[in-house]
């Protein structure tokens, strides 16, 4: 279907542009302004050019946090995308089970992010937590996310998967429901196996919603802050200091707005770049399959 060419459509988009630009452009300009200045106090600052950028790009702790972040987001996508699709495939298609499943699965999504951290502190503490105490006392596996690197990672990953897989599942479920029954009938007549029905019908038809799910999960996991901060505070050591936790350490705790601004913009560009690459790639994948 060709869309109608009409530049007057801008009038319909204008309110969105105004309301988003109001909150987007001025703060962005201000952060750019921070990033090229050394700020001593209100009204006292010195133009330093690209110094903060060079300093930040050479900061080895930033590099470490960045690799940690890539590992984290990579694991998140590898686990949550297939798991979410599996759950969506298993969910009932009609009857009372549909609203029941939708309501239950949406629960973790509706909990404020610092409460999520709180839930997992309470759940995994070795003395009072069901998971922590269960591992230590029942299974005899020493587990303490405040002291051991691997345990901290396992806890953060469990929390993340628990928290966000429902989003992927909900979106994938929506995509599955959009497939007309006729496609399945055709597949049955051809004697297609469940696997080939999945690969040749369901997966291509879910491309749109899975693109949204993938991008949302990439962006939000790359920017994750409150949940791991509440749970581990970035420790033990620096082992769960993700990019945004390190950013807050630099920008707000040391109150260094110049480096913080430069860091923020580098961070923003990385997210932007990868989102753009993923967006283009996912659109191309779909086109290839259609042909």
């Amino acid at each position, binding site marked *: 279907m*060709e*869309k*109608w*060419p*009409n*530049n*007057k*459509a801008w009038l319909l*988009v204008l*309110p*969105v542009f105004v*309301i*988003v630009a109001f*909150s*987007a452009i001025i703060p*962005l300009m*201000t*952060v750019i302004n*921070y990033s090229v200045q050394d700020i001593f106090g209100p009204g006292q600052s010195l133009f330093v050019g690209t110094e903060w950028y060079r300093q930040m790009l050479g900061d080895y702790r930033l590099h470490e946090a960045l690799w940690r972040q890539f590992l984290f987001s990579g694991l998140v996508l590898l686990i949550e995308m297939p798991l979410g699709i*599996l*759950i969506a495939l*298993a969910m009932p298609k009609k009857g009372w089970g549909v*609203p029941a*499943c*939708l*309501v*239950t*699965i*949406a*629960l973790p*999504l*509706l*909990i*404020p*992010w610092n409460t999520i951290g*709180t*839930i997992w502190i*309470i*759940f995994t503490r070795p003395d*009072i937590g069901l*998971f922590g105490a269960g591992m230590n006392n029942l299974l005899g596996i020493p587990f303490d996310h405040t002291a051991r690197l691997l345990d901290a990672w396992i806890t953060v990953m469990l929390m993340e998967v*628990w928290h966000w897989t429902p989003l992927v599942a*909900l979106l994938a*479920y*929506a995509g*599955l429901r*959009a*497939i007309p029954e006729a496609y399945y009938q055709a597949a049955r007549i051809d004697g297609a196996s469940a696997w080939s029905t999945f690969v040749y019908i369901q997966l291509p038809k879910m491309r749109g*919603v899975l693109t*949204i799910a993938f991008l*949302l999960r990439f962006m*939000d996991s790359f920017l994750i*802050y409150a949940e791991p901060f509440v749970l581990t505070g970035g420790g033990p050591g620096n082992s769960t200091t993700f990019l*945004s936790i390190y*950013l807050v350490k630099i*920008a*707000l705790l040391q109150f260094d*707005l110049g480096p913080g601004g430069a860091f923020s913009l580098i*961070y923003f560009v990385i997210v932007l770049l990868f*989102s753009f690459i993923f967006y283009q790639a996912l659109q191309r994948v779909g086109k290839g399959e259609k042909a």
Partner: protein
Amino acid sequence: MKGKKKIVGLVIYFILLVIPIYWMLNMSLRSNADILASFALYPKDITFMNYMKIFTDSSWYMGYVNAMIYVVMNTLISLTVALPAAYAFSRYQFVGDKQMFFWLLTNRMAPAAVFALPFFQLYSTIGLLDTHIAVALAHCLFNVPLAVWILEGFMSGVPREIDETAFIDGYGFPRFFITIFIPLIRAGVGVTAFFCFMFSWVELLLARTLTVTEAKPISAIMTRTISATGLDYGLLAAAGILTIVPGAMVIWFVRNHMAKGFALGRV
């Protein structure tokens, strides 16, 4: 046999999903001393002390009221501006449409920590600091793009012959849009409202930055239990349980819309 495996898998998943929430509920019904003294799978002496404290102390319960006010405002604003824009993206080709669509998306990509400070300056300059509308407007930054995105999907599913017929019948755009088109995508509006509510309700950093006392949301107030005398786990758990309630109520009310919207499969 295969169907059974599916159901068993699903049931196990849902049990794992609910256990951490159950654990918080368990904690919220015990006193802090009891929590630290012994490990218990269920509360032996149920106490509503933690809940009573929250419901009787206005600095606690107003947090829920404040959050509800700005979340509802944000959902209404987001839907109002996003509906016409999503229509434009789904129906028309115009200069810069693709770039605009992607630009909207980029507003979800900035790390909030440093951006929060200019937000504070911006809203204090225009005198909106510590008001509900400030948080509602700030949350539009990430909710409006999402709303446009989701609604565009639903709208693209409506055949364009409907628009053409209505215009031939002499409907003006506003009348057509409000009386014919929006009712057609009612389920989509429900799903979008759910997502807007959700992301505004759970956001913490901007909400905390833009409020002082008058509009402070519960998620910011909760950090108090940490700075006081150690960590009051019972109180924290009760406050946490109460943050789930409004969201759970919203899904309960829109569950049929959601089921219908998800059945249309347009997100």
